[in-house]
């Protein structure tokens, strides 16, 4: 089932939902349907039949039970910042939006945990942690809109993964409503709990296909001290890996990002932030680390000196204040937004770190050979082996033809991903856009087990159907 097969009339559907959540928590006006029916992908026209806003886990349970009874397909909706159409309702589904389940409670200073409704916005949790003198380290450009429930459903990563891991690493416990309508308390916030299958992990990154996360206990940690940013100019791609290796064997980096000169020139051209230095370099590496003492700075300087001597680095700067650190970060973080005007084709792929250079070269070679007029923009979390491939649409090429050609590029790219045993989606999830390519990363046997698992939790295939895997 990829769409609602309910025999209920629209009026009956609305009335039954209203009976569960109240009249004012069901919306069917065109604006709401449009807004809550899509994410950032904007490929599939939104077409939900209603948006429902539960306030409690019990209401979510009632909605799921009702949906089972009447075969209504449900799509979870958080901050709708996804990039793989995982939260898109294009086939008459009912959207379950968690916006009103946004309370933070039960902070425990000893356990360093806090209880969040699925609708808590990432930044809200970050700020809450800061008020307690702690830190929630999962961070990315959309943190001001994305919700914890969505972060968990997609196992969101971001810019600090090299040090702090993905969302998965910060979930102590989950309350979920399964596709069968059961409420499960998973892991009970324990650090050690070897009592069999850790089902919590299935719901993390499960994209709402097994059930919906309604509440989560998130772990917090001590705040990083005096985060200092280096931006280094690097003559060739291979040198970035040498720089990474040199620093990583000596310093606990909190981030290691890279971007190409082409990407940075476009950001700088907007005039918001200056280039780091005048020396020209083909690539840039952005490193972040905690400079708790003068000793840490000295160590970073020594490593920089070594990289200069080896010819891996041409020039570099170090932030002297928080403002400078933020401005240096913007060279990397503003890329996505900056290149949006070229209607870029995007891919979010990963391989193990050691294979990154040949992997990148192979992709670049084939794209350049087949489409020499395409401009390729690389950036990404290279410390995690995660590359964001962006191809800009040439001005004289029609959008339709460009995307047709990009579909071919996708196949080549994913064949290379398969060859290098990489992932077709490093941190953006599968949703609908990556679903056709899942087999490049997951074997047929694996996908078979995934289907079987889904059938256990969601026998009627009502939970976010048509995302991640097809059941037929």
């Amino acid at each position, binding site marked *: 089932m990829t769409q609602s097969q309910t025999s209920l009339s629209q009026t009956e559907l609305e009335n039954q939902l209203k009976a569960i959540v109240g009249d004012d928590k069901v919306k069917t006006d065109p604006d709401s349907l449009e807004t809550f029916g899509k994410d950032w992908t904007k490929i599939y026209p939104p077409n939900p039949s209603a948006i429902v806003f539960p306030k409690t886990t019990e209401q979510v349970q009632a909605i799921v039970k009702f949906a089972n009874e009447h075969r209504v397909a449900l799509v979870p909706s958080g901050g709708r910042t996804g990039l793989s159409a995982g939260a898109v309702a294009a086939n008459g589904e009912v959207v379950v939006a968690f916006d009103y389940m946004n309370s933070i409670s039960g902070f425990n200073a000893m356990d360093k945990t806090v209880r969040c409704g699925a609708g808590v916005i990432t930044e809200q949790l970050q700020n809450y942690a800061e008020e307690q003198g702690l830190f929630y380290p999962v961070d990315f450009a959309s943190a001001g809109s994305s919700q914890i429930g969505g972060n968990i459903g997609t196992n969101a990563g971001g810019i600090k993964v090299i040090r702090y891991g993905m969302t998965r690493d910060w979930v102590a416990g989950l309350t979920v409503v399964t596709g069968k309508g059961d409420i499960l308390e998973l892991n009970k916030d324990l650090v050690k709990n070897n009592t069999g299958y850790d089902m919590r992990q299935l719901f993390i990154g499960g994209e709402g296909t097994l059930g919906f996360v309604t509440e989560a206990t998130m772990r917090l940690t001590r705040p990083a001290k005096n985060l200092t940013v280096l*931006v280094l100019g690097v003559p060739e791609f291979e040198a970035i890996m040498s720089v990474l290796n040199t620093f990583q064997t000596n310093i606990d980096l909190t981030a290691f990002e890279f971007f190409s000169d082409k990407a940075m020139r476009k950001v700088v051209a907007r005039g918001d932030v200056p280039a*780091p230095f005048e020396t020209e370099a083909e690539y840039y590496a952005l490193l972040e680390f905690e400079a708790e003492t003068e000793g840490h700075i000295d160590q970073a300087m020594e490593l920089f000196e070594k990289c200069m001597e080896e010819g891996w680095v041409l020039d*570099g700067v170090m932030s002297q204040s928080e403002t400078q650190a933020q401005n240096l970060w913007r060279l990397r973080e503003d890329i996505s937004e900056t290149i949006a005007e070229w209607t870029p084709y995007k891919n979010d792929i990963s391989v193990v770190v050691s294979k990154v250079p040949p992997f990148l070269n192979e992709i670049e070679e084939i794209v350049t050979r087949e489409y020499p007029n395409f401009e390729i923009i690389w950036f990404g979390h290279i410390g995690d082996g995660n590359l964001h491939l962006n191809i800009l649409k040439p001005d004289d090429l029609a959008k339709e033809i460009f995307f047709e050609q990009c579909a071919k590029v996708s196949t080549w790219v994913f064949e290379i991903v398969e060859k290098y045993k990489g992932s077709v989606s490093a941190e953006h999830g599968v949703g609908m856009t990556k679903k056709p390519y899942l087999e490049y990363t997951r074997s047929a046997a694996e996908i078979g087990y995934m289907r079987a698992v889904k059938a256990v939790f969601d026998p009627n295939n009502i939970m976010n159907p048509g995302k991640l895997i097809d059941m037929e």
Partner: protein
Amino acid sequence: MKVLVAVKRVIDYNVKVRVKPDNSDVDLNNVKMAMNPFCEIAVEEAVRLKEKGVATEIVVVSIGPKVAQEQIRTSLALGADRGILIETDEKLESLTVAKLLKAVVEKEQPQLVVLGKQSIDSDNNQTGQMLGALTGLPQGTFASEVVVDGDKVNVTREVDAGLRTVGLSLPAIVTTDLRLNEPRYASLPNIMKAKRKPLEVVSPADLGVEIKSTQTVVKVTPPAERSAGIKVADVAELVEKLKNEAKVL
């Protein structure tokens, strides 16, 4: 031409400032400190004068605790030639700072003294002016352009009505405004070179200045928190509230 630049170590511009629970002061415990942004602009301007061949030596001075050396090192990495730290853990008022700077001016005899127009911690905007009064040197405050022309400096000042350019005979004092320039980053090779540049540490007593306090902080309180907004039902209600509650119509 010798240029003297004063830099101050302040709470980082991006740090959310917290007040101590007993309202005695701002909480500086474990708080990121950095160079005052207006002082960064002052250093940048001096470096540009040197790059243009106008300045021959840049001396940077800071007054504060031992760790204020960090801000001097940053200035040296940006292009200053040597540093002076007037080390003290005392709380400093603008007048004391101006007196200490006056002593440095007398000793160093710079042709140009460049300071930030104010520091973002105390926001007084008076040290440059006081230094002008104490030394008797002409001053060009709120500079958005500085052009040295022989034994004169033309300073374009940002004033309420627009821009006013004053011609000062050297030696002179300039305080910097935001639009004067965009400071550069400290490059790593220059940060390393800066370690070998001379940094002299002196005490206020060495300069013959006694640190006196004429002010007492009565109480430090955070700004009132904004109360939550409300939704109005229609335009009529909005107009009514703007008229009677906000009293802006």
